[in-house]
């Protein structure tokens, strides 16, 4: 499968979905699917995408929250899966777009190219591993925390960049989610 097609499909008709995009290729994938104020693309803080999703899911229990991140990013924060497994947020889904490469730094192989099984780790931490065919529905309805690692082709594709300024990304997300009161809170 091709990563852009996978992410575009997962984000099409996204309804009220709140999205955190892990740094690098998955942030570009989410932007290619359509930039939204309710997508928070990360340009740094590698390893923290799933934890940002957890914080958001705890703060917004009535909304569905999706983390889209890469295998390298997820590997840097494996402990987050254990932490999510303890908190068990029913509204959170973590999807790893797994190309078995560090795409931003020269396509070096990640640990998943050598048999490390992220879904196995997630399952052991108490997350519910979802098949790809059920994933889009699970993101919107299945009691979580849900997890999927989606194997995609390792390919170099054009960058599609979201806004870079962190304070802007934060402010637009909060305003879109919480309304104008977010500006004066």
């Amino acid at each position: 499968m091709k990563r852009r097609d996978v992410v575009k499909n997962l984000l099409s008709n996204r309804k009220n979905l709140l999205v955190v995009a892990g740094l690098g290729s998955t942030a570009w994938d989410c932007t290619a699917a359509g930039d939204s104020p309710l997508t928070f693309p990360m340009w740094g803080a590698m390893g923290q995408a799933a934890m940002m999703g957890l914080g958001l899911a705890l703060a917004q229990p009535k909304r569905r929250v999706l983390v889209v991140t890469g295998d390298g990013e997820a590997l840097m924060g494996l402990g987050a899966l254990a932490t999510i497994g303890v908190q068990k947020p029913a509204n959170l889904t973590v999807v790893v777009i797994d190309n078995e490469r560090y795409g931003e730094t020269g396509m070096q192989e990640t640990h998943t190219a050598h048999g490390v099984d992220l879904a196995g780790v997630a399952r052991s931490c108490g997350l519910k591993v979802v098949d790809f065919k059920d994933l889009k529905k699970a993101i919107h309805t299945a009691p979580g925390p849900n997890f999927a690692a989606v194997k995609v082709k390792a390919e170099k594709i054009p960058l599609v960049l979201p806004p870079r300024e962190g304070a802007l990304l934060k402010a637009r997300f909060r305003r879109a989610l919480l309304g104008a009161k977010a500006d004066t809170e």
Partner: protein
Amino acid sequence: MWPEGIHRELGLAGVRVVGYVPDAGHKRLIELCRADRKMRAVVLTTEEEGIGLAAGAWLGGQRSVLLMQSSGVGNIVNVLGMVRECRFPLVTLVTMRGEQGEFNPWQVPMGQAVRPVLEAMDTVVQQVEKEDQVAPVVNAALRLAFNSYVSVAVLISQRLIGIKSFQEQSAR
């Protein structure tokens, strides 16, 4: 006691999420937060996770704090870059080691580096030496962080925590 004073300030400030890494100095405060039905206490595998947690909670409209020991400051340096770049409010309550009367030499390097490391990452550092200062300083740190969108760390000095040996630490 000072943990009760901090817990009261957190409640008054509307803090709903408390990330923590287990720590002898914060033992009582962790218990108070875990027992508080208005707070979600989140045990972390490393302090770094607490920054992502706090940022995500703020995106969702909730206030949080992060509890850690001084050694944890070394684990959050890079992700403090996100806090600064995004102007996320952040309150970190740090119990100090490697400072006054330390008994474990391995705690000393990080303990001594806490302030310069935090300040290098644009975090406002406020140290508390006396019991009756704890609640007012935490109160002010909460207002500074959430009203002015900055990162504030309150360092609770080792003298206040008062653990003087391995034996005493494990007995707590």
